[in-house]
């Protein structure tokens, strides 16, 4: 579910297109607590016949041990004195700590380069997430999860937009493959959807700033509200892996038999304090999934002028830790 943290920290506005994809930093969580178990390992990202890749711009519903390193996003934004290049390099580490429960830690490094000026750099706020898979229906390729994301305020560089307050986002996740469609609709069966909806709640309702008003000779207090946001996202995937393995072998061979074209929608809707328009991006792209890793690249297209005006790009290299190091990661660290 490492795509999750990325989505949770996307903030778009006309003024600041930062934190497109979050940040990077990891802590190998409790590896020393590994308890070797003789049980068979459930492969990550599966619900029945369906393999779901780790999505890039939105979160997927799976609790698994995986590593996104790196996720790189780049976009050019209009600025007051010329275009501003905004690059974010981030990473997320997820570790299955209990059966069906994973903990993720992520952070990112921001590089903002205004035209004809020195680049500003700094870390984003550290982000942590816990996700629990609470229902899976294999015949219908359905999985649902709940999670809580904590953007830890004050851990990133404030001048680059990292907030000094924390934000908590309880989230519901779902994944559904269409493999249970009747065999009369074979070409639709490789389609799968993943989605998430969460309420992002800042720990501080508003930011207070004081400035001196020379006209009145008095200090002026300004309160900038921090609205609660509904963070929602959808990924629509067409799995050539599923097509080849479960519907019809159309003769695709490597690397094309491992491709998953997809479109992701990563959206934010304010719900109080500063009611504004929904912002977000539509991200068409493609993922190649191998035995141990996957690579994906997407365009980042603002859905409206409130989000931005330029098209960006995001790319991610993602590792399946449970396949790379099965003796360590194929079972939960703590297996009661």
């Amino acid at each position, binding site marked *: 579910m490492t795509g999750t943290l990325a989505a949770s920290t996307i903030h778009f506005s006309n003024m600041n297109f930062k934190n497109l994809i979050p940040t990077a930093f990891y802590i190998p969580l409790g590896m020393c607590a590994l308890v070797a178990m003789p049980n068979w390992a459930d492969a990550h990202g599966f619900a029945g016949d369906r393999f779901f890749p780790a999505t890039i711009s939105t979160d997927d519903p799976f609790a698994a041990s995986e590593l996104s390193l790196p996720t790189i996003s780049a976009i050019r934004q209009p600025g007051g004195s010329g275009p501003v290049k905004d690059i974010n390099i981030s990473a997320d580490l997820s570790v299955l700590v209990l059966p069906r429960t994973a903990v993720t830690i992520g952070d990112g490094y921001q590089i903002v380069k205004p035209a004809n000026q020195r680049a500003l750099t700094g870390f984003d706020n550290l982000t942590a997430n816990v996700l629990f898979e609470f229902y899976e229906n294999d015949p219908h390729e359905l999985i649902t999860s709940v999670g809580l994301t904590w953007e830890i305020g004050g851990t990133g560089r404030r001048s680059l937009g990292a907030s000094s307050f924390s934000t908590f986002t309880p989230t519901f996740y779902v994944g559904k493959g269409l493999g249970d469609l009747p065999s009369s609709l074979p070409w639709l069966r490789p389609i799968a959807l993943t989605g998430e909806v969460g309420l992002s709640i800042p720990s501080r309702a508003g930011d207070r700033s004081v400035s001196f008003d020379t006209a009145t000779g008095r200090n002026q207090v300004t309160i900038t509200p921090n609205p609660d946001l509904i963070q929602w996202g959808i990924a629509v995937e067409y799995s050539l892996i599923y097509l080849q393995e479960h519907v019809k072998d159309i003769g695709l061979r490597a690397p094309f038999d491992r491709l998953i074209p997809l479109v992701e929608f990563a959206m934010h809707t304010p719900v109080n304090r500063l009611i504004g328009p929904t912002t977000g991006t539509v991200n068409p792209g493609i993922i190649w999934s191998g035995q141990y890793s996957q690579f994906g690249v997407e365009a980042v297209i603002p859905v409206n002028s409130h989000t931005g005006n330029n098209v960006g790009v995001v790319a991610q290299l993602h590792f399946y830790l449970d396949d790379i190091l*099965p003796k360590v990661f194929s079972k939960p660290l703590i297996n009661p």
Partner: protein
Amino acid sequence: MLVFLPSAWAHAFIDHAEPAVGSKLASPPGAVKIWFTERLEPALSTIQVFDSQGTEVDKRDTKVDPKNGQLLVVSLPAIKTGKYRVTWRVVSVDTHVTNGSFEFEVTG
């Protein structure tokens, strides 16, 4: 920089199958063969073949090919025309479990 040295194991996907996934055959096959991307645990890997009524028609003799640890085979009797569903459940040697299914049709 972290460096990973992958082991030789992971969850097993289908590489290809005979009869091919979703194929139509003029004559009935004598066996279903599935080549996987990983070596399999012989005692825990199975293929079953069902007709359109849901009756298992294979000879229940699934075995991993002794010369190719990634090839799983089950024999078939002389089956009639019709649609058949192949279901498989395999355990790769690192204990990852995967399963799946596909159809083929004998047109006669």
